[in-house]
């Protein structure tokens, strides 16, 4: 296990009530996945081919929130992956796509019910997603750098609730 928090039972959650849609989470996520992990300016000025952010910011004013891979206990993307590139690390619980083996067939995009796997078509087609900043061994960059603490890490809920359904809930967003 790398230093820092043990992400095995953690997930990143959003508080839409305090998200202001500034998208700094995207910026910091991108930087954290370049060689200039802690230097936004260098990451954006010196790295020609920057990665996609692993977080999606959904926005429809006045509401916004960030959403990234849930690192599910029973990951649909892993079970659907046709190459075996998408795997859940048994030690960390993090779902990682082995880019060297991914062929960009987008079956994971078809399978993921959170819609948090992106198409990276900058060179070869590959699926791109949140890796919980596992390589950096620290709190994920999006969480660490959110100015409003609209993103936080918390325990993973594996139980599912009937309250998740659209009906049976009063009111609309």
């Amino acid at each position, binding site marked *: 296990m790398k230093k820092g928090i043990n992400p095995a039972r953690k997930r990143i959650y959003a508080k839409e009530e305090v998200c202001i849609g500034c998208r700094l989470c995207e910026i910091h996520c991108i930087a954290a996945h370049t060689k200039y992990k802690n230097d936004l300016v260098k990451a954006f000025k010196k790295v020609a081919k920057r990665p996609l952010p692993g977080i999606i910011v959904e926005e429809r004013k006045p509401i916004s929130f960030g959403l990234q891979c849930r690192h599910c206990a029973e990951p649909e993307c892993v079970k659907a992956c046709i190459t075996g590139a998408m795997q859940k690390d048994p030690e960390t619980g993090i779902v990682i796509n082995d880019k060297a083996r991914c062929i960009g067939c987008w079956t994971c995009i078809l399978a993921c019910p959170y*819609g948090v796997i992106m198409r990276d078509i900058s060179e070869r087609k590959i699926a791109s997603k949140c890796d919980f900043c596992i390589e950096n061994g620290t709190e994920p960059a999006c969480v660490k750098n959110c100015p409003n603490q609209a993103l936080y890490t918390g325990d993973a809920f594996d*139980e599912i609730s009937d309250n998740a359904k*659209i009906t049976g809930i009063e009111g609309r967003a």
Partner: protein
Amino acid sequence: MSYVIIGNSFAAIGAVEGIRKHDIRTPIIIISDEPYHTYSRPLISYYLGGKVPEEKIYYRDKDFYEKNKVEPILGIRAERVDFDKKEVLLRDGRRIPYNKLLIATGGKPITPLLEGIEKKNVFSFIKLDDVKEIEKAAVKGSRAVVVGASFSGLKAVEALVQRGVKVTVIDIMDRIMPRVFDERASQIAKKTLEKYGVEVLLKTTVEKILGAEKAEGVSLKDGREIACDFVILAVGVRCNTDLVKDTNMKINRGIVVDDRMRTSIPDVYAAGDVAEGYNFIEDKYMEIAIIPNAYKQGETAGENMAGAEKSFNKGFIMNSMPLFDLSVISAGLSSETGDDIRVKTVFKEKEDVYKKFYVRENKLVGYLLINDIDRAGIYTGLIMSGEDISLIEENIGEDGFGFISFPKEARKVKMLKGWSV
């Protein structure tokens, strides 16, 4: 005491991983007539197209068997199963005893009744060995006829074009991907294929493969003849039940299983393309020949073989197919079967974006997306959860569809706790 799995693809690997959730000790034997470490069959088109070399076609790491205490018996066919003695009989005469057996023998190509089919250079497109033969014939500048414009036929077409082969693809139906596409979707795909120099012939069939010893052309029902150097037959697969065909195991088109993947014979399970699992959108037991289903059925079988009680009754058809620069994703129902289906379409002609949704009793039961596939899985989640979508039906298919389109509470619970299925 041991588990025996016949088959070495997605369902078989799912079963190993399912067994190992509950039982890390008991040995597992995997038997396959193919001599290869577990590999991904859909990658054969990428292998043929020069995108994935043979050493990267494996489905699980090279140490997978060792790590999971699996003894692979590869390159040897299982001939028969003696259900009374609980033994698998191998072609080399060996008898492999089992306590729990999984049959995961997959599908086999449908061979059409076609004069000249026995000629050389007439290929199937299912296994690694098929493409190892095809690549010898598919040299730059050669000409190919591909019979069948469905998923696997089209992936063969794409791979051949990438090799510099001139391809004609033929289908008996009036559309490309007839089970998934309507006329408009077919037109979009046809345009793409033609842009890449592929000749598309619909509503016709090959009657005869021409040539002396090897295929030199085909003659069509309408009398036309097309010269070629080889033919690929991709008209579909059927359940490969050969191993158990003369037994008292209950078989329809595939092996009949319950939701725990048990067959009619005690201690014998079946999973993947060979089995008829429950399709909850169609509400019937049928073959669901897709990878996610094969894996989940295999995993379910494995868990039950290891003593857990686990059901899988959420199978349905879903596919993602990149074809040249086209992206296609479909799931669930893909045609208007019955009066109770509402259809919603979004079409952007300039961008070749086409989206089609099928709603039944206020539930999303199917969709097709062409060229705007991002976040498709949220729709898949709605199919799987089977929840009432009336409150968001107007938002389905809109640009930027996501959890923002959901009522606040439903969105929050889904994102914080997960979908309920």
